[in-house]
C-alpha cells in the first residue's frame, strides 16, 4: 500500500472517530438535558407557565408518597399470595385483595391525573388527561383486548 493510501485511510479513520464521539456526545448531552427532571417533559409538552408548573410540582410531590405507600401494600400482598402458593393452597382471597389494591392504586392515579389536568389551561389539561390515560390504562386495555382476540382463548378457559 502506498504512502498516500495509508495517509488517506488514517485520515478517514480519524474522521470516523471524531464523528462518532461528536455524535454520541451531542446526543447524550441533549437527551440528558431534556430528561433532567421528572416534570421537564410536562412543561415542554403542555406549554406550562412557571406558576402552573410550580402548582403541578406541589401536586406531584404530594402524590408520590401516597403512590409509594400503595406500591408497598401491593408488594406485601403479592408476597402473601406467593406464600400461600408456596404452601400448595389456592390464594383466592389474597388474589381478590391484591386486585382490590391494584384497583385502588389506579383510582388514586387517575384522581391525580385529574388534579394535574385542572391545574393546566383547559385545552392542555384535556390533552394531558387523554395522553395519561392512553399511556397508563390504555396499555392494559390493549393487552386485555389482544388476549380476547387470541385464537383458542375461549377454549383454554373452558378447560379450567
Amino acid at each position, binding site marked *: 500500500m*502506498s*504512502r*498516500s*493510501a495509508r*495517509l*488517506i485511510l488514517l*485520515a478517514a479513520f*480519524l*474522521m470516523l472517530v*471524531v*464523528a*462518532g464521539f*461528536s*455524535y*454520541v*456526545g*451531542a*446526543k*447524550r*448531552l*441533549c*437527551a*440528558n*438535558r*431534556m*430528561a433532567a427532571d*421528572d*416534570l*421537564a*417533559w*410536562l412543561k*415542554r*409538552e403542555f406549554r406550562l407557565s412557571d406558576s402552573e408548573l410550580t402548582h403541578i410540582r406541589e401536586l*406531584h410531590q404530594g*402524590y*408520590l408518597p401516597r*403512590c409509594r405507600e400503595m*406500591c408497598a401494600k401491593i408488594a406485601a400482598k403479592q408476597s402473601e399470595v406467593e406464600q400461600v402458593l408456596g404452601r400448595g393452597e389456592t390464594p383466592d382471597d389474597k388474589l381478590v385483595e391484591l386486585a382490590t389494591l391494584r384497583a385502588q392504586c389506579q383510582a388514586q*392515579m387517575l384522581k*391525580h*391525573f385529574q388534579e394535574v389536568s385542572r391545574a393546566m389551561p383547559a385545552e392542555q389539561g384535556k390533552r394531558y388527561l387523554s395522553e*395519561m390515560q392512553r*399511556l*397508563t390504562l390504555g*396499555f392494559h386495555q390493549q393487552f386485555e383486548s389482544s388476549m380476547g382476540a387470541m385464537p383458542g382463548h375461549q377454549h383454554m378457559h373452558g378447560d379450567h
Partner: protein
Amino acid sequence: MSQQSFNEPGAEKLSALLRAARPALELPPGFERHVWQRIERGEPRSAGILESVAGWLLTPRIAAAGLVLVMIVSAGAGVARGFRSGERQARDRYVASVDPSYLPR
C-alpha cells in the same frame, strides 16, 4: 588560475587531454529551449488522485476545516437524534414516576 598558466607549455596538452576525457554528447535539437520552457512554466510532476487527496489532507488548513466540518455535521445529527430520544426519555420518566408499573414502549 591566471591567464599566464594557459600559455605555459604543458597547458595545451592538458586541454587536449581533458577534451578527450569528456566527450561531448550530441543533444537533441531545441533541448536547451525545451528545458528553459519547462522551468518557466513550473510544470509539476503529474500526480495521481491518491497523491492529490493525500496532498490536501496534509495541508493544515484543509485538514482542520475538514475535521471541524465533520464535528459540526455529526454533532448536529447527534443533537437532532438526542432531541427525539430525550423527549421520549423525559416522557417515560414522568409517566414512570406516577405509574411505577409503566413499561417504556
